């Protein structure tokens, strides 16, 4: 469902992603991890056709993202990291617009909008403007908008941000169920416990390069760590947390 071959992206002189080659099968939930600025969002933007690669190629749902971006976009759903919404619209209006962009028949789209808003607990707020929504409510609208057209591949960039515990549980379960239906999930998150629990496979990138690929247990075993968290710290070279904390506290004392 997702295939990349030496996928590379430069921003001026800076290399954001270097020769990424991965393959994600249908029904797989891939956890895509990395420290801040590692190249996760760049990868997602490349795979969703939002930006073009400097070199290499990528195929999503059977189509090349560079040559057939519209075909790719018809088959994917994307929950971006930041709440990119037209905030002067109401939740219902926004989902209505999204449905139209995917050519969803009006009646079934309306029905699906009502159902999605209801299931996400937004039925009472559906005619409120998105600017009045809380962060979690906006996140629910974003998730609903990514699911509206029943995509084959779902890109989720920190999808649980702002969600309450109940909503987070529902979304996690939803992700598993969608994968069970044969949809591919590309899951980016910094919350390692969630990734460990939800994803069947994990790729860790750092400085634009893939540095680990496997199940959480395999990655932990390769690095000699006891958990994914320890493995992540070992692989991405994070400084000693106790030392950093001490330095921070010292700075506050000055």
């Amino acid at each position, binding site marked *: 469902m997702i295939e990349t071959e030496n996928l590379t992206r430069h921003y001026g002189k800076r290399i954001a992603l270097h020769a990424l080659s991965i393959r994600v099968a249908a029904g797989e939930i891939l956890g895509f991890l990395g420290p801040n600025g590692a190249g996760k969002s760049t990868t997602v933007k490349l795979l*969703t*056709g939002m930006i073009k690669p400097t070199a290499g190629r990528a195929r999503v749902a059977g189509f090349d993202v560079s040559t057939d971006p519209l075909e790719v976009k018809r088959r994917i759903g994307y929950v971006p990291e930041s709440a990119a919404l*037209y905030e*002067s*619209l109401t939740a219902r*209006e926004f989902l209505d617009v*999204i449905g*139209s*962009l995917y050519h969803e028949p009006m009646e079934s789209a309306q029905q699906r909008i009502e159902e999605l808003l209801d299931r996400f607990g937004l039925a009472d707020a559906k005619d409120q403007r998105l600017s009045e929504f809380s962060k979690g409510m906006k996140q629910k609208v974003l998730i609903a908008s990514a699911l509206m057209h029943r995509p084959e591949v779902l890109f989720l960039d920190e999808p649980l941000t702002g969600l309450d515990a109940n909503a987070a549980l529902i979304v996690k379960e939803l992700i598993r169920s969608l994968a069970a239906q044969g949809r591919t999930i590309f899951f980016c998150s910094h919350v390692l416990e969630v990734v460990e629990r939800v994803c069947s496979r994990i790729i860790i990138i750092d400085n634009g390069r893939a540095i680990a690929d496997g199940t959480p247990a395999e990655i932990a075993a390769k690095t000699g760590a006891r958990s994914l968290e320890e493995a992540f710290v070992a692989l991405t070279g994070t400084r000693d947390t106790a030392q950093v904390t001490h330095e921070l506290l010292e700075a506050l004392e000055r």
Partner: protein
Amino acid sequence: MINRIIQALGVDPVQWRALVRTYLRMDFRAGGGATTRTGSGRARGHPLVGVAIITGLGGAMFATLAARIPDLLVSATLLTSYGGINTVMLLLVDFTGLVVSPDDYGVLGHRPVSSRTYFASRLASILAYIGFVSVVLALLPAVCYALWWQLGITGLAFTFAAVVLCNVSATIVIITVYAMMLSLVHPHRLRRALSYLQLVSMMGFYVAYYLSMEGFRNSFLFRLSFSDQPWMWINPASWFAAFVRLAAGGVPWMVWVASGAALAISIGCIPLAAGRLSLEYAQQLAETTVAGEPATRRRFRLPGFGRAESRAVALLVSAQFRFDQRFRMAILGIIPLILFYLLLGLNQGALADPFSPDARSSAGVPLYMAVVFMPMTLHASLHYSDSWRAAWIFFATPASAARLIVAAKNIVTVWFLGGYLLLLAAIWSYYYERIWHAFFHAAVIGLLAHMLLQITVMMRPSLPFAAEPRKVERSARLYSVLFFGSMIAAIIPTFLPYVYVSTALTAVVVAVMVAMTAALEYTLRLRVTEAIGDLEFRA
């Protein structure tokens, strides 16, 4: 039928309809930011109403010209020229609000929307707006041509066609130029390039505005006749004006050629822009709006604002100037205005020492226009920002909103108005009999301008950079400032000579002004504290 036409243009009709509906809906709704619980913190009514009123007044002026100028082609050319310049100004002041929103890329970048569909929907929404402004501008002149010139319904229709097509073409040309610059220049450099473009076009607008005002004052516009001059066809707006001349009948061949050229421009420029206005364009625009000067540059500090809220506002103003393109362009757009009025004012006798009995009472009106416009326009520019969401800091910290607002006013006064007055004083020092006359006079008009600024802030107190930019709101404000500012500025020189009649009177007047400033400052703080009492943040 419509669907088929749209499809034939390579545009997805379903997506087009959905996007146009969305853009129009968004344009007519209030934005977020700092507002009162009832929403009254924002401007009452839609800014489009303000633009319509000011444009309608402009239309009335051109209807008067149409009735008074014996040469139909001349009056129509003045109308279309003003319409074109006005459109360019509107687009440049409000470009990211009017043409393409940087938000589009985040929302639509991963959706199956083709660049052509995106272009068509954005163009439709902008043309709806430009069409509205054009119709309002053309309404009274069209009625004048129909009834006064007895051109009937044809004259009415051709006037509307001339103004609408001229403004639409100006829109597309601006979009194309902007898009070309965006594709050729890196965002960092583009900011600078756009600033220069803004300076040039703002200068054009101010010149046109001032000349039309002067033309009215001196009645020279009523005697204008140049339709037999070949050079008049250099101005493309005259090609569109030729439509109105066509309605009168018995036209020379050149008018036919000009009308044909206008029609060709209107049709031909659409495909020119079509290939450029795309989602990639929106992405580049998004990069431009956040692209700042290189971080290695030394940071610009505003001395004198070193404590608490005033320091925070001073830092914000300097940072916004570096990073917020909208704010930067608004500030830079004022420079040509100042230069223009400065030169014009000095040319009109503002160099005469006001303490001298020979000083004319009407000398230097344009100079005082700049003194009035600048603080008012700058203060209006401090209101909006693309980073308005960051205004939560004013609400989540123990900062005094009243002090923040007053600090913003003081920054405008000290740094912008103060700088301008120092420059004036330096120039006057050379020409006046005594140097202190120059500085004293600068201080007097500075006090006057400051009082006007105090009144402006009192009328509409707002936290700095805390309101979401709304379509045409900035343009509407600029129009209001130009319109009302001109009236206030015209009063200043009539009043000033009396201030310097005798030392005693000067002392009394200055004392009264200082007392009024102090009273206004006290009232302003009370008013601001009261007005922001129920201010809350919506994002």
